[in-house]
């Protein structure tokens, strides 16, 4: 059974993640109103926010150590926060600044923090194979680290995921696949793209255990993840875990969501896993003031990160030419900013 201090940790992570998304939404829309222009405002590019997914990141990552690997999809912030990714440098990355995790080269879909073994990919389900690779490395090195691949329910129809289930199973890899079911893949409801209501059912075809958490509840997810991560850590192979979450905002910022029934959106907003967890905390005898303090700490942390990020310098245009390779070939003038580059802005 989960103890109160862990509940508390999860709560604070979830509040952090929620507030983070709300604040990013504000920042992102700043300059994009009244007319939404994706190129305007302080945050460039697409932005997929994870408000309503927090229980998944917190409930699963609660069981993970820094040496465990996580791969996240295009909607990664809540997972990154729960995994302990450096919040300031992550925020600077999202704002496209020089001191960002990727020096501004990656952006919000490509967050990499090797210190806590966190990586992303914006291609659906393609984080799964690298996760099994991390699991394979752990197994080969005889460590007890595990790897967790997060994906959306829309990703369970993609070959990369399905092949990975099989390879993880046949090699008994210490891997957990976590499917975040928010009912939608952009505008496509789950029932339009698969006949299976419970995504964990995919596991049966490859003989690995599958489980689904039907409620958007951090404690239930924590419990299911405990079993799955424990199984991996103990050398007993992979698990497929599907968890119900909710998409409280659009698929990406600017999504009109005109395809989405109002009731669906309203329902998503009602089933709030953060409120639910606050109740659990109260049931465990945690005082409202303590909960409030948590909230404040979380908010402060977010504000600090955003403030810090916005203060960071923009990258030098010439930096674009670096980092194609870790070991740049000496003869390649194209990635040498001092060389004449006709395609550039020098």
């Amino acid at each position, binding site marked *: 059974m989960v103890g109160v201090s862990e509940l508390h940790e999860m709560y604070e992570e979830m509040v952090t993640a929620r507030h983070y998304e709300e604040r990013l939404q504000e920042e992102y829309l700043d300059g994009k109103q009244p*007319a*939404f*222009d*994706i*190129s305007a405002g302080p945050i*460039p*590019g*697409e932005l997929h926010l994870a408000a309503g997914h927090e229980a998944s990141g917190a409930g699963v990552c609660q069981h993970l150590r820094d040496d465990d690997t996580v791969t996240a999809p295009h909607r990664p912030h809540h997972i990154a926060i729960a995994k302990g990714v450096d919040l300031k440098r992550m925020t600077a990355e999202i704002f*496209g*600044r020089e001191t*960002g995790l*990727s020096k*501004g*080269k*990656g*952006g919000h*879909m*490509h967050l990499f923090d090797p210190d806590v073994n966190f990586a992303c*990919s*914006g*291609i*659906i*389900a*393609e984080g799964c194979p690298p996760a099994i690779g991390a699991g394979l490395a752990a197994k080969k090195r005889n460590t007890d680290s595990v790897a967790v691949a997060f994906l959306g329910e*829309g*990703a369970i*129809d*993609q*070959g*990369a995921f399905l092949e990975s289930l099989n390879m993880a199973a046949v090699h008994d890899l210490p891997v957990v696949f976590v499917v975040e079911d928010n009912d939608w*893949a*952009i*505008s*496509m409801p789950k029932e*339009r*793209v*698969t006949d299976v209501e419970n995504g964990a059912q995919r596991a049966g075809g490859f003989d690995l255990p599958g489980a689904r958490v039907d409620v958007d509840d951090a404690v239930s997810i924590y419990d299911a993840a405990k079993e799955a991560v424990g199984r991996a850590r103990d050398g007993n192979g992979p698990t497929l875990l599907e968890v119900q979450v909710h998409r409280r905002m659009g698929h990406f910022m*600017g999504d009109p969501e*005109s*395809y989405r029934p109002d009731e669906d959106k309203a329902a998503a907003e009602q089933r709030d896993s953060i409120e639910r967890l606050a109740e659990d905390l109260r049931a465990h005898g945690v005082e409202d003031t303590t909960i409030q303090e948590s909230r404040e700490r979380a908010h402060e942390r977010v504000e600090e990160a955003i403030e810090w990020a916005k203060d960071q310098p*923009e*990258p*030098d*245009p*010439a*930096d*674009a*030419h670096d980092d*194609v390779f870790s070991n740049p070939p000496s003869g*390649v003038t*194209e*990635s040498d900013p001092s060389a004449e*580059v*006709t*395609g*550039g*802005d*020098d």
Partner: protein
Amino acid sequence: MAQQEESEQQATERSLTMSRAMVEAIAHEMRENDEVFYMGEDVADYGGIFDSTDGLLDEFGHDRIMDVPISETAYIGAAVGAAQAGMRPIAELMFVDFFGVGMDQIYNQMAKNTYMSGGSVSVPMVLTAAVGGTYNDAAQHSQTLYGTFAHLPGMKVVVPSTAYDAKGLMHNAIRDDDPVVYLFHKRLMGIGWMPAPDGPKTGVPKDDYTIPFGSADVKREGEDVTVVTLGLHVHRALDAAESLADEDIDAEIIDLRTLVPLDTDTVRESVAKTGRLVVVDEDYRSFGVTGEIVASVAEDGLADLEAVERVAVPDVPIPYARPMEDEVIPDTDDIADAVRSAHRT
């Protein structure tokens, strides 16, 4: 009477965005031919993330404007199978950058089945995909990959730069008996949330018409330097030509419109006149479009050539932050500089 004439005039000379023009061609073909249908992610209720199918669901319903699972291999391959059965599917790859999840169907089946069957099988399908950067979507969502598709045999490769061309090329693409890869640049579509430059919105006749593949369009005649380009960069090159005109440099701008087939004749004729060749594209610089154009001129028109410049994305993935993305995607100044440099030689 006068009023009617005016409305007829309007009817044939309405200005449309590129996305409206593309959709109009698709709708026309779908009305005329029951065998045409469209498959992709978010193409039905959403109308295509980049408006490529906007409004089609209402007229044609979910059976012909089909949302599909995020299974590019399965549904692009299903298009191949349906095309071999004689239908005329259009399959959309949401971003061209995702080609790697379905490339075997695209290349080893769609592109090769006609040849491998000795011509007994045709694959009359269109693969549409959004291409291009300029809005900071980073390395996995900003590429054009023109060269990758053009290099591999068996696909016709179309890259419209205006609404007029988008419609005529789409009519031709759907009617063509071969697989056509139709790459539309997001920045040109005229999407509400991604303002297009002025050029792509053009007058578009209401009726259907085709633009044959393999005919480049001389967008601007000029005596001094030939600029060969396509897609978004047609408009950037035209802008560059305007500013160069002030310096008495007279650039000829050629829009290739299709890469396969490639209209090398128009390019060579132009270089025979100007002697100077600048190739501009939004793909990676090496082993791609710019190299091919230069080489094809060098092979047959070496004597004409006095200067050569290439303007393209240096061989780096597309970075996210604005200053770096701006650095790698060629802009009007980059093009003007290259033309000046060619002119000086």
